[in-house]
Protein backbone atom coordinates (compact mmCIF):
# COMPACT_ATOMS: atom_id res chain seq x y z
CA UNK A 1 0.00 0.00 0.00
CA UNK A 2 2.86 2.37 0.83
CA UNK A 3 4.61 1.60 -2.45
CA UNK A 4 1.22 2.02 -4.16
CA UNK A 5 0.93 5.52 -2.68
CA UNK A 6 4.33 6.36 -4.15
CA UNK A 7 3.36 4.93 -7.53
CA UNK A 8 0.20 7.03 -7.48
CA UNK A 9 2.31 10.15 -6.81
CA UNK A 10 4.61 9.28 -9.73
CA UNK A 11 1.60 8.71 -12.02
CA UNK A 12 0.04 12.01 -10.97
CA UNK A 13 3.29 13.83 -11.70
CA UNK A 14 3.83 12.12 -15.03
CA UNK A 15 0.34 12.99 -16.25
CA UNK A 16 0.80 16.61 -15.15
CA UNK A 17 4.12 16.85 -16.96
CA UNK A 18 2.77 15.00 -20.01
CA UNK A 19 -0.01 17.58 -20.20
CA UNK A 20 2.53 20.43 -19.98
CA UNK A 21 5.25 19.03 -22.27
CA UNK A 22 3.09 17.03 -24.68
CA UNK A 23 5.72 14.35 -25.29
CA UNK A 24 5.53 12.35 -28.53
CA UNK A 25 9.19 11.43 -28.93
CA UNK A 26 10.69 8.63 -26.80
CA UNK A 27 13.38 10.92 -25.35
CA UNK A 28 10.65 13.34 -24.27
CA UNK A 29 8.94 10.49 -22.44
CA UNK A 30 12.17 9.87 -20.51
CA UNK A 31 12.16 13.55 -19.55
CA UNK A 32 8.47 13.31 -18.64
CA UNK A 33 9.18 10.35 -16.35
CA UNK A 34 11.96 12.23 -14.53
CA UNK A 35 10.09 15.50 -14.17
CA UNK A 36 6.98 13.47 -13.31
CA UNK A 37 8.66 11.96 -10.25
CA UNK A 38 9.75 15.42 -9.09
CA UNK A 39 6.34 16.97 -9.72
CA UNK A 40 4.33 14.07 -8.31
CA UNK A 41 6.34 13.80 -5.10
CA UNK A 42 6.43 17.58 -4.79
CA UNK A 43 2.69 18.13 -5.20
CA UNK A 44 1.54 15.18 -3.09
CA UNK A 45 3.98 16.06 -0.30
CA UNK A 46 2.74 19.65 -0.16
CA UNK A 47 -0.82 18.28 -0.05
CA UNK A 48 -0.01 15.85 2.71
CA UNK A 49 1.67 18.47 4.86
CA UNK A 50 -1.06 21.10 4.44
CA UNK A 51 -3.86 18.59 5.06
CA UNK A 52 -2.08 17.30 8.16
CA UNK A 53 -1.61 20.85 9.43
CA UNK A 54 -5.30 21.72 9.03
CA UNK A 55 -6.37 18.48 10.71
CA UNK A 56 -7.40 16.52 7.61
CA UNK A 57 -4.39 14.22 7.49
CA UNK A 58 -6.39 10.99 7.27
CA UNK A 59 -5.89 8.65 4.34
CA UNK A 60 -9.36 9.19 2.74
CA UNK A 61 -8.93 12.99 2.69
CA UNK A 62 -5.44 12.74 1.28
CA UNK A 63 -6.54 10.31 -1.42
CA UNK A 64 -9.54 12.51 -2.28
CA UNK A 65 -7.45 15.68 -2.72
CA UNK A 66 -4.76 13.83 -4.70
CA UNK A 67 -7.46 12.44 -7.00
CA UNK A 68 -9.03 15.88 -7.37
CA UNK A 69 -5.67 17.16 -8.58
CA UNK A 70 -5.14 14.23 -10.91
CA UNK A 71 -8.57 13.92 -12.53
CA UNK A 72 -8.88 17.27 -14.39
CA UNK A 73 -5.29 17.20 -15.65
CA UNK A 74 -5.64 13.57 -16.76
CA UNK A 75 -8.81 14.50 -18.64
CA UNK A 76 -7.18 17.53 -20.29
CA UNK A 77 -4.13 15.52 -21.28
CA UNK A 78 -6.23 12.65 -22.68
CA UNK A 79 -8.44 15.06 -24.58
CA UNK A 80 -5.55 17.03 -26.06
CA UNK A 81 -3.17 14.21 -26.91
CA UNK A 82 -4.53 13.59 -30.45
CA UNK A 83 -4.29 17.23 -31.43
CA UNK A 84 -0.62 17.55 -30.56
CA UNK A 85 1.77 18.06 -33.46
CA UNK A 86 3.89 15.11 -34.53
CA UNK A 87 7.45 15.88 -33.45
CA UNK A 88 10.13 16.67 -35.96
CA UNK A 89 12.31 13.76 -36.92
CA UNK A 90 15.34 13.62 -34.65
CA UNK A 91 18.56 11.74 -35.14
CA UNK A 92 18.78 8.67 -32.90
CA UNK A 93 21.72 8.10 -30.60
CA UNK A 94 24.96 6.54 -31.74
CA UNK A 95 24.59 2.85 -30.94
CA UNK A 96 28.15 2.32 -29.63
CA UNK A 97 27.83 5.34 -27.35
CA UNK A 98 24.36 4.20 -26.26
CA UNK A 99 25.59 0.70 -25.41
CA UNK A 100 28.60 1.86 -23.37
CA UNK A 101 26.61 4.58 -21.55
CA UNK A 102 23.79 2.16 -20.77
CA UNK A 103 26.36 -0.28 -19.39
CA UNK A 104 27.91 2.41 -17.18
CA UNK A 105 24.50 3.52 -15.96
CA UNK A 106 23.39 -0.05 -15.21
CA UNK A 107 26.56 -0.77 -13.23
CA UNK A 108 26.27 2.50 -11.26
CA UNK A 109 22.59 2.05 -10.45
CA UNK A 110 23.23 -1.60 -9.56
CA UNK A 111 25.89 -0.44 -7.09
CA UNK A 112 23.49 2.11 -5.58
CA UNK A 113 20.68 -0.45 -5.28
CA UNK A 114 22.89 -3.10 -3.64
CA UNK A 115 24.30 -0.52 -1.22
CA UNK A 116 20.76 0.66 -0.41
CA UNK A 117 19.94 -2.93 0.48
CA UNK A 118 22.81 -2.91 2.97
CA UNK A 119 21.46 0.30 4.53
CA UNK A 120 17.78 -0.42 5.29
CA UNK A 121 17.54 2.71 7.47
CA UNK A 122 19.96 4.82 5.45
CA UNK A 123 22.87 6.77 6.89
CA UNK A 124 22.92 8.66 10.20
CA UNK A 125 20.91 11.75 9.24
CA UNK A 126 18.27 9.59 7.53
CA UNK A 127 17.00 7.96 10.71
CA UNK A 128 18.06 10.66 13.19
CA UNK A 129 16.42 13.48 11.22
CA UNK A 130 14.56 12.88 7.97
CA UNK A 131 12.76 9.59 8.63
CA UNK A 132 12.38 10.50 12.30
CA UNK A 133 10.28 13.45 11.14
CA UNK A 134 8.38 11.19 8.77
CA UNK A 135 7.41 9.03 11.76
CA UNK A 136 6.06 12.10 13.54
CA UNK A 137 4.18 13.29 10.45
CA UNK A 138 2.62 9.85 10.06
CA UNK A 139 1.48 9.86 13.70
CA UNK A 140 -2.04 10.23 15.06
CA UNK A 141 -3.76 13.44 16.07
CA UNK A 142 -1.32 16.19 17.00
CA UNK A 143 1.76 13.98 17.07
CA UNK A 144 2.88 15.50 13.74
CA UNK A 145 3.75 18.67 15.68
CA UNK A 146 6.61 16.78 17.34
CA UNK A 147 8.42 17.13 13.99
CA UNK A 148 8.89 20.85 14.67
CA UNK A 149 9.26 20.70 18.45
CA UNK A 150 11.98 22.75 20.10
CA UNK A 151 12.41 19.82 22.50
CA UNK A 152 14.21 17.85 19.79
CA UNK A 153 17.84 18.16 20.74
CA UNK A 154 20.36 18.45 17.88
CA UNK A 155 17.83 17.23 15.34
CA UNK A 156 17.20 20.43 13.34
CA UNK A 157 13.44 20.86 13.84
CA UNK A 158 13.57 23.96 11.60
CA UNK A 159 14.35 21.91 8.49
CA UNK A 160 11.65 21.91 5.77
CA UNK A 161 9.44 18.87 5.53
CA UNK A 162 8.96 17.83 1.90
CA UNK A 163 10.93 14.58 2.08
CA UNK A 164 9.50 13.53 5.47
CA UNK A 165 6.02 14.35 4.13
CA UNK A 166 6.58 12.15 1.07
CA UNK A 167 7.63 9.22 3.28
CA UNK A 168 4.91 9.88 5.88
CA UNK A 169 2.21 9.97 3.18
CA UNK A 170 3.17 6.46 2.04
CA UNK A 171 3.38 5.24 5.64
CA UNK A 172 -0.01 6.76 6.38
CA UNK A 173 -1.60 4.68 3.61
CA UNK A 174 0.38 1.60 4.61
CA UNK A 175 -0.36 1.89 8.33
CA UNK A 176 3.21 1.01 9.37
CA UNK A 177 6.72 2.44 9.16
CA UNK A 178 8.03 0.29 6.33
CA UNK A 179 11.76 1.05 5.79
CA UNK A 180 11.39 0.04 2.13
CA UNK A 181 9.50 3.27 1.43
CA UNK A 182 12.35 5.78 2.01
CA UNK A 183 14.80 3.29 0.50
CA UNK A 184 12.80 3.03 -2.72
CA UNK A 185 12.18 6.76 -2.76
CA UNK A 186 15.93 7.43 -2.58
CA UNK A 187 16.62 5.20 -5.59
CA UNK A 188 13.71 6.64 -7.59
CA UNK A 189 14.89 10.21 -6.95
CA UNK A 190 18.33 9.28 -8.29
CA UNK A 191 16.87 7.52 -11.34
CA UNK A 192 14.72 10.59 -11.99
CA UNK A 193 17.84 12.79 -11.98
CA UNK A 194 19.29 10.62 -14.77
CA UNK A 195 16.02 10.83 -16.72
CA UNK A 196 15.80 14.63 -16.48
CA UNK A 197 19.47 15.09 -17.40
CA UNK A 198 19.22 12.81 -20.42
CA UNK A 199 15.82 14.04 -21.58
CA UNK A 200 16.68 17.74 -21.34
CA UNK A 201 19.98 17.39 -23.17
CA UNK A 202 18.27 15.26 -25.82
CA UNK A 203 15.77 18.04 -26.30
CA UNK A 204 18.06 21.10 -26.28
CA UNK A 205 20.91 19.31 -28.13
CA UNK A 206 20.46 15.68 -29.20
CA UNK A 207 20.28 12.14 -27.81
CA UNK A 208 24.08 11.76 -27.95
CA UNK A 209 24.46 14.83 -25.73
CA UNK A 210 21.97 13.22 -23.35
CA UNK A 211 24.06 10.04 -23.24
CA UNK A 212 27.21 12.04 -22.54
CA UNK A 213 25.41 13.76 -19.68
CA UNK A 214 24.60 10.32 -18.25
CA UNK A 215 28.25 9.32 -18.61
CA UNK A 216 29.53 12.32 -16.65
CA UNK A 217 26.98 11.75 -13.89
CA UNK A 218 27.69 8.00 -13.67
CA UNK A 219 31.35 8.89 -13.19
CA UNK A 220 30.45 11.17 -10.24
CA UNK A 221 30.99 8.66 -7.44
CA UNK A 222 30.81 11.39 -4.79
CA UNK A 223 27.29 12.21 -5.94
CA UNK A 224 26.02 8.67 -6.56
CA UNK A 225 27.23 7.42 -3.19
CA UNK A 226 24.61 9.69 -1.59
CA UNK A 227 21.84 7.70 -3.30
CA UNK A 228 21.42 4.99 -0.63
CA UNK A 229 21.82 7.48 2.26
CA UNK A 230 18.11 8.51 2.23
CA UNK A 231 19.11 12.17 2.79
CA UNK A 232 17.34 15.18 1.28
CA UNK A 233 20.28 16.28 -0.89
CA UNK A 234 19.55 14.01 -3.89
CA UNK A 235 15.84 15.05 -3.88
CA UNK A 236 16.96 18.68 -3.70
CA UNK A 237 19.34 18.12 -6.62
CA UNK A 238 16.41 16.71 -8.60
CA UNK A 239 14.26 19.77 -7.93
CA UNK A 240 17.16 22.12 -8.78
CA UNK A 241 17.89 20.19 -11.98
CA UNK A 242 14.19 20.03 -12.90
CA UNK A 243 13.67 23.77 -12.40
CA UNK A 244 16.79 24.62 -14.43
CA UNK A 245 15.71 22.19 -17.17
CA UNK A 246 12.27 23.82 -17.28
CA UNK A 247 13.89 27.25 -17.68
CA UNK A 248 15.94 25.98 -20.64
CA UNK A 249 12.77 24.47 -22.15
CA UNK A 250 10.62 27.59 -21.59
CA UNK A 251 8.36 25.74 -19.12
CA UNK A 252 8.40 28.40 -16.44
CA UNK A 253 5.26 27.46 -14.53
CA UNK A 254 6.51 23.92 -13.94
CA UNK A 255 9.96 25.32 -13.20
CA UNK A 256 8.49 27.61 -10.54
CA UNK A 257 6.63 24.69 -8.97
CA UNK A 258 9.83 22.64 -8.77
CA UNK A 259 11.76 25.60 -7.35
CA UNK A 260 9.16 25.90 -4.58
CA UNK A 261 9.53 22.15 -3.93
CA UNK A 262 13.28 22.76 -3.55
CA UNK A 263 12.49 25.44 -0.95
CA UNK A 264 10.43 22.92 1.03
CA UNK A 265 13.12 20.23 0.81
CA UNK A 266 16.03 21.98 2.54
CA UNK A 267 16.85 25.48 3.74
CA UNK A 268 19.39 25.75 0.89
CA UNK A 269 16.49 25.27 -1.51
CA UNK A 270 14.98 28.51 -0.28
CA UNK A 271 18.02 30.41 -1.60
CA UNK A 272 17.67 28.56 -4.90
CA UNK A 273 13.95 29.32 -5.24
CA UNK A 274 14.43 33.04 -4.61
CA UNK A 275 17.41 33.25 -6.99
CA UNK A 276 15.37 31.34 -9.60
CA UNK A 277 12.40 33.68 -9.44
CA UNK A 278 14.57 36.81 -9.47
CA UNK A 279 16.83 35.76 -12.34
CA UNK A 280 14.30 33.94 -14.54
CA UNK A 281 11.97 36.94 -14.16
CA UNK A 282 8.88 35.29 -15.69
CA UNK A 283 5.38 35.67 -14.32
CA UNK A 284 4.46 31.99 -14.95
CA UNK A 285 7.43 30.95 -12.79
CA UNK A 286 6.03 33.03 -9.96
CA UNK A 287 2.54 31.60 -10.53
CA UNK A 288 3.89 28.06 -10.43
CA UNK A 289 5.93 28.72 -7.31
CA UNK A 290 3.31 30.71 -5.39
CA UNK A 291 1.31 27.89 -3.70
CA UNK A 292 4.45 26.11 -2.59
CA UNK A 293 6.21 29.25 -1.42
CA UNK A 294 3.15 30.34 0.57
CA UNK A 295 3.25 26.95 2.31
CA UNK A 296 6.97 27.30 2.98
CA UNK A 297 6.51 30.84 4.31
CA UNK A 298 3.68 29.71 6.59
CA UNK A 299 5.82 26.81 7.81
CA UNK A 300 8.75 29.11 8.57
CA UNK A 301 6.63 31.82 10.18
CA UNK A 302 4.18 29.79 12.25
CA UNK A 303 5.71 26.37 12.87
CA UNK A 304 9.46 26.06 12.52
CA UNK A 305 11.75 27.15 15.34
CA UNK A 306 14.66 29.45 14.35
CA UNK A 307 17.56 27.75 12.61
CA UNK A 308 20.49 26.90 14.83
CA UNK A 309 22.83 27.68 11.93
CA UNK A 310 21.62 31.24 11.46
CA UNK A 311 22.32 34.43 13.33
CA UNK A 312 26.06 34.12 13.70
CA UNK A 313 28.52 36.94 13.17
CA UNK A 314 30.59 37.09 10.00
CA UNK A 315 33.77 35.01 10.25
CA UNK A 316 35.83 36.06 7.22
CA UNK A 317 38.55 33.62 8.24
CA UNK A 318 36.16 30.75 7.37
CA UNK A 319 36.13 31.62 3.68
CA UNK A 320 39.42 30.09 2.52
CA UNK A 321 39.05 26.85 4.53
CA UNK A 322 35.52 26.50 3.12
CA UNK A 323 36.71 26.97 -0.47
CA UNK A 324 39.58 24.56 0.16
CA UNK A 325 37.21 21.94 1.61
CA UNK A 326 34.86 22.29 -1.36
CA UNK A 327 37.77 21.91 -3.77
CA UNK A 328 38.92 18.80 -1.93
CA UNK A 329 35.44 17.32 -2.03
CA UNK A 330 35.14 18.05 -5.74
CA UNK A 331 38.48 16.33 -6.26
CA UNK A 332 37.08 13.33 -4.42
CA UNK A 333 33.94 13.34 -6.54
CA UNK A 334 35.46 10.91 -9.03
CA UNK A 335 37.70 7.89 -9.00
CA UNK A 336 41.01 8.21 -10.85
CA UNK A 337 41.05 8.90 -14.58
CA UNK A 338 37.27 8.61 -14.76
CA UNK A 339 36.86 11.84 -12.81
CA UNK A 340 33.76 13.76 -13.99
CA UNK A 341 35.64 17.08 -14.24
CA UNK A 342 38.17 15.40 -16.52
CA UNK A 343 35.33 13.97 -18.62
CA UNK A 344 33.78 17.43 -18.96
CA UNK A 345 37.16 18.80 -20.06
CA UNK A 346 37.49 16.04 -22.69
CA UNK A 347 34.01 16.87 -23.98
CA UNK A 348 34.81 20.59 -24.09
CA UNK A 349 37.93 19.85 -26.12
CA UNK A 350 36.25 17.33 -28.43
CA UNK A 351 32.93 19.03 -29.10
CA UNK A 352 33.84 22.68 -28.73
CA UNK A 353 31.73 25.44 -27.30
CA UNK A 354 28.64 26.27 -29.35
CA UNK A 355 28.54 29.80 -30.72
CA UNK A 356 25.09 30.39 -29.28
CA UNK A 357 23.53 29.25 -26.03
CA UNK A 358 19.93 28.66 -25.03
CA UNK A 359 18.25 32.00 -24.18
CA UNK A 360 18.06 31.20 -20.45
CA UNK A 361 21.51 29.60 -20.19
CA UNK A 362 23.37 32.57 -18.64
CA UNK A 363 20.62 33.23 -16.13
CA UNK A 364 20.58 29.58 -15.11
CA UNK A 365 24.34 29.71 -14.55
CA UNK A 366 23.74 32.84 -12.50
CA UNK A 367 21.22 30.96 -10.34
CA UNK A 368 23.76 28.20 -9.63
CA UNK A 369 26.44 30.82 -8.89
CA UNK A 370 24.15 32.48 -6.34
CA UNK A 371 23.44 29.08 -4.82
CA UNK A 372 27.17 28.43 -4.50
CA UNK A 373 27.69 31.84 -2.88
CA UNK A 374 24.84 30.95 -0.52
CA UNK A 375 26.76 27.88 0.63
CA UNK A 376 29.88 29.95 1.24
CA UNK A 377 27.84 32.54 3.14
CA UNK A 378 26.42 29.79 5.39
CA UNK A 379 29.96 28.63 6.24
CA UNK A 380 31.11 32.20 6.86
CA UNK A 381 28.31 33.16 9.26
CA UNK A 382 27.89 29.83 11.03
CA UNK A 383 28.03 30.05 14.82
CA UNK A 384 28.92 26.33 14.88
CA UNK A 385 32.28 24.63 14.65
CA UNK A 386 33.50 25.04 11.06
CA UNK A 387 35.04 21.56 10.89
CA UNK A 388 31.65 20.07 11.78
CA UNK A 389 29.93 22.25 9.19
CA UNK A 390 32.42 21.45 6.42
CA UNK A 391 31.49 17.77 6.68
CA UNK A 392 28.51 18.76 4.54
CA UNK A 393 30.50 20.08 1.55
CA UNK A 394 30.21 16.89 -0.54
CA UNK A 395 26.45 16.96 -0.09
CA UNK A 396 25.99 20.63 -0.94
CA UNK A 397 28.09 20.28 -4.10
CA UNK A 398 25.79 17.40 -5.02
CA UNK A 399 22.75 19.65 -4.75
CA UNK A 400 23.84 21.63 -7.84
CA UNK A 401 26.06 19.05 -9.54
CA UNK A 402 23.55 17.50 -12.02
CA UNK A 403 22.27 20.97 -12.98
CA UNK A 404 25.85 22.12 -13.57
CA UNK A 405 26.52 19.09 -15.81
CA UNK A 406 23.33 19.89 -17.73
CA UNK A 407 24.31 23.50 -18.32
CA UNK A 408 27.93 22.75 -19.25
CA UNK A 409 27.02 20.07 -21.83
CA UNK A 410 24.12 22.16 -23.15
CA UNK A 411 26.68 24.88 -23.91
CA UNK A 412 28.75 22.56 -26.15
CA UNK A 413 28.16 21.75 -29.81
CA UNK A 414 25.74 18.88 -30.41
CA UNK A 415 27.69 15.64 -30.78
CA UNK A 416 26.83 14.32 -34.25
CA UNK A 417 28.44 11.15 -35.56
CA UNK A 418 25.99 10.23 -38.33
CA UNK A 419 25.39 11.31 -41.92
CA UNK A 420 26.48 14.73 -43.28
CA UNK A 421 22.76 15.70 -43.62
CA UNK A 422 22.18 15.01 -39.96
CA UNK A 423 25.36 16.92 -39.11
CA UNK A 424 24.12 19.92 -41.09
CA UNK A 425 20.75 19.77 -39.31
CA UNK A 426 22.43 19.71 -35.91
CA UNK A 427 24.80 22.50 -36.97
CA UNK A 428 21.88 24.83 -37.60
CA UNK A 429 20.50 23.84 -34.18
CA UNK A 430 23.78 24.94 -32.58
CA UNK A 431 24.02 28.11 -34.66
CA UNK A 432 20.50 29.37 -35.26
CA UNK A 433 21.86 32.80 -36.19
CA UNK A 434 23.53 31.31 -39.26
CA UNK A 435 20.29 29.58 -40.22
CA UNK A 436 18.29 32.80 -40.07
CA UNK A 437 21.08 34.62 -41.91
CA UNK A 438 21.03 31.96 -44.66
CA UNK A 439 17.26 32.15 -44.73
CA UNK A 440 17.40 35.91 -45.22
CA UNK A 441 19.99 35.43 -48.01
CA UNK A 442 17.72 32.98 -49.83
CA UNK A 443 14.80 35.35 -49.49
CA UNK A 444 16.84 38.18 -50.97
CA UNK A 445 17.87 35.98 -53.95
CA UNK A 446 14.25 35.12 -54.56
Amino acid at each position, binding site marked *: MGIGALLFAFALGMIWVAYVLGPRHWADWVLTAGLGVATGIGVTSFNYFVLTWIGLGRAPWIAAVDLMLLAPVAWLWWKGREGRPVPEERAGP*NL*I*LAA*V*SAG*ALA*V*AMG*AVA*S*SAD*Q*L*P*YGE*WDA*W*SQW*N*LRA*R*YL*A*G*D*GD*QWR*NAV*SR*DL*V*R*SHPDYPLLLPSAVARAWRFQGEHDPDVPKLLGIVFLAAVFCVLFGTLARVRNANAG*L*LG*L*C*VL*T*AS*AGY*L*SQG*PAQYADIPLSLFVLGAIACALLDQYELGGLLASAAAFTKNEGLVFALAYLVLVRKLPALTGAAPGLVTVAAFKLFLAPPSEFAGGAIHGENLLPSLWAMGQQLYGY*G*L*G*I*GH*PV*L*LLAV*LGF*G*LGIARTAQPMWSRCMGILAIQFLGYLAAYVVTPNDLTFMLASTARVIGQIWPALILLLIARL*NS*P*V*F*ASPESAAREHTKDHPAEESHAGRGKARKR
Partner: protein
Amino acid sequence: MPLSKSFLSALVVAVLALWASLDFFQAMGRTIGDPYKVTQFLARYGPAVEMLPSKGKVGYLSDTTFDDVKGQVLYFSALYAVAPHKLVYSADAGPDMEYVLGNFSILDWQKNVDARGGDHPLETFKSFGNGLVLLRRKD
Protein backbone atom coordinates in the same frame (compact mmCIF):
# COMPACT_ATOMS: atom_id res chain seq x y z
CA MET B 1 31.36 6.56 -39.77
CA PRO B 2 34.28 9.02 -39.76
CA LEU B 3 36.50 8.93 -36.65
CA SER B 4 36.07 12.61 -35.91
CA LYS B 5 37.49 14.44 -32.91
CA SER B 6 34.00 14.74 -31.44
CA PHE B 7 33.27 11.02 -31.81
CA LEU B 8 36.60 10.02 -30.30
CA SER B 9 36.13 12.35 -27.34
CA ALA B 10 32.61 11.02 -26.77
CA LEU B 11 33.85 7.45 -26.93
CA VAL B 12 36.69 8.20 -24.50
CA VAL B 13 34.19 9.78 -22.10
CA ALA B 14 31.83 6.80 -22.33
CA VAL B 15 34.60 4.24 -21.78
CA LEU B 16 36.04 6.20 -18.84
CA ALA B 17 32.54 6.49 -17.36
CA LEU B 18 32.13 2.72 -17.63
CA TRP B 19 35.52 2.30 -15.97
CA ALA B 20 34.54 4.72 -13.20
CA SER B 21 31.21 2.99 -12.64
CA LEU B 22 32.97 -0.38 -12.24
CA ASP B 23 35.31 1.22 -9.68
CA PHE B 24 32.26 2.68 -7.96
CA PHE B 25 30.55 -0.72 -7.92
CA GLN B 26 33.59 -2.20 -6.22
CA ALA B 27 33.72 0.65 -3.68
CA MET B 28 30.03 0.38 -2.84
CA GLY B 29 30.42 -3.38 -2.38
CA ARG B 30 32.31 -2.54 0.80
CA THR B 31 29.24 -0.91 2.40
CA ILE B 32 28.81 -2.16 5.95
CA GLY B 33 25.31 -3.53 6.54
CA ASP B 34 23.19 -1.39 8.92
CA PRO B 35 26.28 0.33 10.44
CA TYR B 36 24.35 1.93 13.31
CA LYS B 37 22.48 -1.30 14.15
CA VAL B 38 19.12 0.44 13.88
CA THR B 39 17.38 -2.90 13.32
CA GLN B 40 18.75 -4.20 16.62
CA PHE B 41 17.88 -0.99 18.44
CA LEU B 42 14.29 -1.09 17.20
CA ALA B 43 13.98 -4.64 18.54
CA ARG B 44 15.49 -3.50 21.85
CA TYR B 45 13.08 -0.61 22.34
CA GLY B 46 10.01 -2.36 20.91
CA PRO B 47 8.56 -3.80 24.17
CA ALA B 48 9.05 -0.48 26.00
CA VAL B 49 7.42 1.52 23.20
CA GLU B 50 4.36 -0.76 23.33
CA MET B 51 3.83 0.15 26.99
CA LEU B 52 3.90 3.92 26.45
CA PRO B 53 0.61 5.83 26.67
CA SER B 54 -0.69 7.07 23.32
CA LYS B 55 -0.47 10.73 24.41
CA GLY B 56 2.05 12.85 26.31
CA LYS B 57 5.80 13.13 26.20
CA VAL B 58 8.37 10.69 27.51
CA GLY B 59 11.50 11.68 29.40
CA TYR B 60 14.99 10.32 28.88
CA LEU B 61 17.69 9.27 31.33
CA SER B 62 21.07 7.77 30.52
CA ASP B 63 24.56 7.38 31.92
CA THR B 64 25.93 8.61 28.57
CA THR B 65 26.01 12.14 27.14
CA PHE B 66 26.16 13.80 23.74
CA ASP B 67 29.91 14.18 24.17
CA ASP B 68 30.54 10.60 23.09
CA VAL B 69 29.30 8.72 20.05
CA LYS B 70 27.79 5.99 22.21
CA GLY B 71 25.57 8.54 23.94
CA GLN B 72 24.45 10.00 20.61
CA VAL B 73 23.65 6.57 19.16
CA LEU B 74 21.68 5.59 22.27
CA TYR B 75 19.68 8.84 22.32
CA PHE B 76 18.94 9.14 18.60
CA SER B 77 18.05 5.46 18.22
CA ALA B 78 15.64 5.81 21.16
CA LEU B 79 14.23 9.02 19.65
CA TYR B 80 13.61 7.20 16.36
CA ALA B 81 12.12 4.11 17.98
CA VAL B 82 9.80 6.03 20.31
CA ALA B 83 8.50 8.35 17.53
CA PRO B 84 5.77 9.43 16.92
CA HIS B 85 5.77 9.83 20.73
CA LYS B 86 7.85 12.78 21.83
CA LEU B 87 11.04 11.83 23.67
CA VAL B 88 12.46 14.75 25.66
CA TYR B 89 16.16 14.83 26.54
CA SER B 90 15.44 15.30 30.23
CA ALA B 91 14.23 13.13 33.09
CA ASP B 92 12.37 16.02 34.66
CA ALA B 93 10.46 17.75 31.91
CA GLY B 94 7.38 18.97 33.74
CA PRO B 95 4.15 17.79 35.29
CA ASP B 96 2.63 16.24 32.14
CA MET B 97 5.44 13.73 31.78
CA GLU B 98 4.59 10.46 33.51
CA TYR B 99 7.17 8.10 32.03
CA VAL B 100 10.93 8.27 31.56
CA LEU B 101 12.88 5.92 29.33
CA GLY B 102 16.05 4.78 31.08
CA ASN B 103 18.58 3.92 28.38
CA PHE B 104 21.85 2.85 29.96
CA SER B 105 25.12 1.49 28.64
CA ILE B 106 25.72 -0.19 32.01
CA LEU B 107 23.79 -2.96 33.75
CA ASP B 108 24.07 -1.37 37.19
CA TRP B 109 21.84 1.58 36.31
CA GLN B 110 19.84 1.86 39.55
CA LYS B 111 22.40 4.19 41.14
CA ASN B 112 21.95 6.62 38.21
CA VAL B 113 18.20 6.69 38.83
CA ASP B 114 18.68 7.21 42.57
CA ALA B 115 21.26 9.95 42.03
CA ARG B 116 19.04 11.84 39.61
CA GLY B 117 17.37 14.04 42.20
CA GLY B 118 14.81 16.52 40.84
CA ASP B 119 11.32 17.41 42.05
CA HIS B 120 9.64 14.22 40.94
CA PRO B 121 11.20 10.94 42.14
CA LEU B 122 11.04 7.98 39.78
CA GLU B 123 10.30 4.32 40.35
CA THR B 124 10.97 1.37 38.11
CA PHE B 125 7.87 0.56 36.08
CA LYS B 126 9.45 -2.25 34.09
CA SER B 127 12.99 -3.33 33.38
CA PHE B 128 13.57 -4.92 29.96
CA GLY B 129 17.14 -5.97 30.71
CA ASN B 130 20.35 -4.95 29.03
CA GLY B 131 20.20 -1.41 30.47
CA LEU B 132 16.73 -0.53 29.20
CA VAL B 133 14.11 0.41 31.76
CA LEU B 134 10.80 2.24 31.81
CA LEU B 135 10.57 4.54 34.85
CA ARG B 136 7.44 6.18 36.19
CA ARG B 137 6.95 9.19 38.42
CA LYS B 138 6.11 8.18 41.97
CA ASP B 139 3.65 11.04 42.49
